[in-house]
């Protein structure tokens, strides 16, 4: 029995049990992680799972059931259980659940992958990580860690409307981290980013990161931070490195434009959004330099795919154009509820999770400046890079971020290293203060975007370049 046939059996069982619509995602996923600490590999984990998740609509109620069994009988039972759960949902429902129309697609997609990460010997990967930790320790780290992650996902999607899609997505990434321990505090330095850098690429992507070449610097900078002066408190011009700006985009734009949040579907947990649908197309989100796109078609970016988990083909779309809010991340059900006519941003974290609105690649289009020009144009400010902490309210307005390092900017030049940098603000005010934006864009990958209950971890991409924001509050401290 083929994977498509199993998914079809599940969908048919849900229809037989009374569903007016059903879809099924059958997935095989292999993952591999390794972690090294202070010269030793401490963790080599490989996971392989396969299963089927079925979604059914009965009347106005949705139900979802998942099993790790992809045989015909189990698939049929799963479809039936999904319909049963949907019936129970009707106990607390109202009329109107539905989806926008979609042309059923028959298609196939796979990302580029030169070197299959799962074929690279563990000993080679282990040597890379342990050597990186050794170098960081040698140059100042008290604790040095290095990790990589690999995901290899094959999925087959079938819907009762006739969609039939298979995809093969291979992702990987790695990162190193040095911790220096002082008398009263600890300091951390990471590369390429605080959680590593990830992409829909093969192992060639990890090799290109040059972890070993950067390890000595990372170890030394962690040590240097212990004695660096503290980031001053007050208001100043702020220049953000592209990795920190990527997270700023993720938290204060990406989540805010999720349509399920805007509709209140995540109100109890992830939260809502400050955005009001009645102002879509007119609300000023930021300065004219702010052009944010939703683009799951970027080759290699972590949020790329061929079709989302409702079978909608990947299409690039504007979210913010010249500072004006013009688009959302949507699914077929949320789009119907909002009166919109597009979807394409629904994904599930594996076969056992319900597809929901998730970011794809949400990024800032490059600007006209260079990083050097931005620094040279700044008389008095602070440059911050490498995220260390992030916090934002449930409407995605009030944020506070910390970074691993900051540098004074005086008279158009980078100056002293600063420790414990933080900045805080309100989303639209902050984005309105964007006045310089570099063209040096990097598509940063975020492999740990949490959302939903039960919790789902999403993989998202965020093209971003260094940028300057005027008159920002910095140096918020506990005491």
């Amino acid at each position, binding site marked *: 029995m083929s994977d498509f046939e199993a998914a079809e059996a599940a969908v048919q069982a849900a229809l037989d049990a009374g569903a007016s619509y059903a879809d099924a995602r059958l997935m095989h996923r292999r993952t591999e992680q390794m972690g090294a600490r202070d010269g030793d590999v401490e963790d080599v984990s490989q996971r392989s799972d396969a299963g089927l998740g079925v979604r059914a609509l009965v009347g106005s109620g949705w139900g979802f059931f998942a099993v790790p069994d992809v045989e015909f009988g189990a698939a049929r039972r799963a479809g039936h259980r999904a319909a049963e759960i949907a019936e129970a949902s009707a106990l607390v429902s109202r009329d109107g659940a539905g989806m926008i129309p979609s042309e059923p697609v028959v298609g196939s997609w796979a990302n580029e992958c030169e070197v299959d990460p799962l074929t690279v010997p563990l000993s080679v990967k282990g040597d890379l990580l342990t050597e990186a930790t050794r170098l960081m320790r040698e140059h100042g780290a008290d604790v040095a860690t290095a990790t990589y992650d690999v995901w290899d996902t094959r999925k087959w999607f079938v819907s009762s409307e006739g969609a039939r899609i298979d995809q093969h997505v291979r992702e990987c990434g790695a990162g190193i981290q040095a911790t220096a321990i002082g008398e009263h505090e600890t300091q951390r330095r990471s590369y390429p980013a605080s959680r590593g850098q990830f992409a829909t690429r093969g192992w060639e992507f990890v090799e290109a990161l040059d972890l070993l070449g950067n390890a000595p610097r990372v170890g030394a900078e962690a040590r240097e931070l212990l004695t660096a002066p503290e980031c001053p408190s007050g208001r100043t011009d702020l220049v953000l490195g592209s990795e920190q700006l990527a997270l700023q985009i993720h938290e204060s734009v990406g989540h805010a434009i999720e349509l399920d949040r805007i509709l209140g579907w995540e109100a109890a947990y992830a939260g809502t959004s400050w955005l009001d649908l009645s102002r879509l197309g007119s609300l000023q989100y930021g300065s004219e330099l702010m052009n944010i796109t939703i683009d799951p078609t970027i080759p290699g970016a972590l949020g790329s795919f061929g079709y989302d988990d409702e079978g909608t083909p990947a299409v690039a779309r504007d979210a913010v154009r010249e500072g004006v809010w013009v688009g959302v991340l949507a699914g077929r059900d949320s789009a119907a509820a909002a009166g919109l006519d597009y979807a394409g941003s629904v994904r599930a974290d594996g076969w056992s999770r319900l597809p929901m609105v998730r970011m794809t690649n949400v990024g800032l289009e490059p600007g006209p400046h260079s990083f050097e020009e931005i620094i040279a144009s700044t008389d008095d400010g602070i440059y911050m890079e490498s995220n260390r902490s992030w916090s934002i309210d449930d409407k995605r307005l009030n944020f506070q971020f910390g970074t691993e390092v900051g540098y004074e900017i005086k008279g158009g030049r980078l100056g002293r290293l600063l420790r414990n940098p933080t900045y805080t603000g309100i989303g639209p005010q902050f984005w309105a203060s964007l006045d310089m934006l570099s063209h040096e864009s990097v598509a940063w990958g975020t492999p740990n975007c949490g959302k939903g*209950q039960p919790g789902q971890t999403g993989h998202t991409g965020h093209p971003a370049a260094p940028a300057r924001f005027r008159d920002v509050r910095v140096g918020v401290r506990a005491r």
Partner: protein
Amino acid sequence: MNDQRQLPEEVVQRVRDVLPGAEVTVQVDRDRLSLTRFATSVIHQNVAEDTTTARLVVHHDGRTATGTTTVATQDDVAGLVERVRDAVGHAPLDPSWPGLTSADADRPRSAEVDLATAGATPRDRAEVVRGFVEGADGLETAGYVRTVHWTGGFASSNGRVVVGEATECGLSGIARHEADGTRWDGLARLAPLSIAELDGEVLGARAAAKARAMAGAEELPAGAYEVVLEPGAVLDLLGNLAAHGYGGRAVEEGRSFVRLGDQQLDPALTLLDDPLEVGRTYDDEGTPARRLPLVEEGRSVGIATDRRTAAALGVESTGHSAHGGFSWGPTPLHLALQPSGDDEVAEEVDGPAADSSVASLVAGVERGILVTDFWYTRMLDPRSVSFTGLTRNGTWLVEDGVVTRPVSNFRFTQSYVDALAAGQVRGVGRTATPVPGDTYSATSPRFSCPALHLGSWNFTGGASG
């Protein structure tokens, strides 16, 4: 294929057949997880899964490899053994392998399994949701009702065999009051030992009372205030204090503030990790779960360890090994802060306080803030356990022991250690409330917390920045 009791021994034998002399552990878990989610007062996401997973750890010739797979057929098991056998031959050396839990180690407790929770149907959960919606009396509602039933087995190559079973349930929900174009949210949360104890209507009414009491909230100036933290907010303090302070890896690496034997917190605080009521009965290494005192009257007395961190620290494992341990290390997930009284259940009260235990603390506040919940708390400094985050789901000004007006959400930047330091705890609630963590699984956090009255909390900004 759902035999969690015999399968581990079979897999151990398969590995021993192909890798004689290997040290092997096998854990098989069957998780029946169900969650009924509602928003805009209707059930919008209603999900369930029935998943059996096998985890195999092999140490051979000084190298270690771990493999996990979902299990439906014998082919899945055979594939797992083959992959891990291949991996361990190519894995780097693992000089800090801590060995296996002794075959003679204590047996896990026999769990009290709640049959109502284990057998809960989608309709049972929907009925609790309907009660919450009705209890909110017309306000828009959102939240979840969840039930979990776990059975598992563990075997290792030195002959240790243990089995377990547990149930867990919880409700977390908000009611939303709309006035003058603004929505105000109020929260209720409970994780009792049985779904039969989840009274949706009472919890819906509590959430609605809070939401209505928030109408017209305005900003207050930033600054240090006395606070009464309800159990939902105390959960955040305790969870982060435990993860970043009382976790063995943080201590091993020198990132923790904890100095065992020292008086580091207020004498009013006694904290233990108590996984005996809910959750898995043993950890990933077959070590039985047990009560672990962490703080006794303000003195740090214990830390959570797995076998690797225990070996590094020269102590015994406390049974806190968990998947993903490399990133987080062993972490207490079932914290119980000792209340100041013996009342098992607090009484419902009028007004925004969650219950009579909270209200009694509010009565002792000269001028301060009543906080229902914290949100998006993230660490700034591990040594001082300094965090930033926001208040959520209900915040009020208290003057001379009386709630006087609602307050917009604050942002705070605060060292949790400083907040709980000697002299800072002005009151501990008489009743501990069991509250569910955010995630759901057989290892999901469930904390039992009384409310706390603290002398100072550093609010660094309001809703407008």
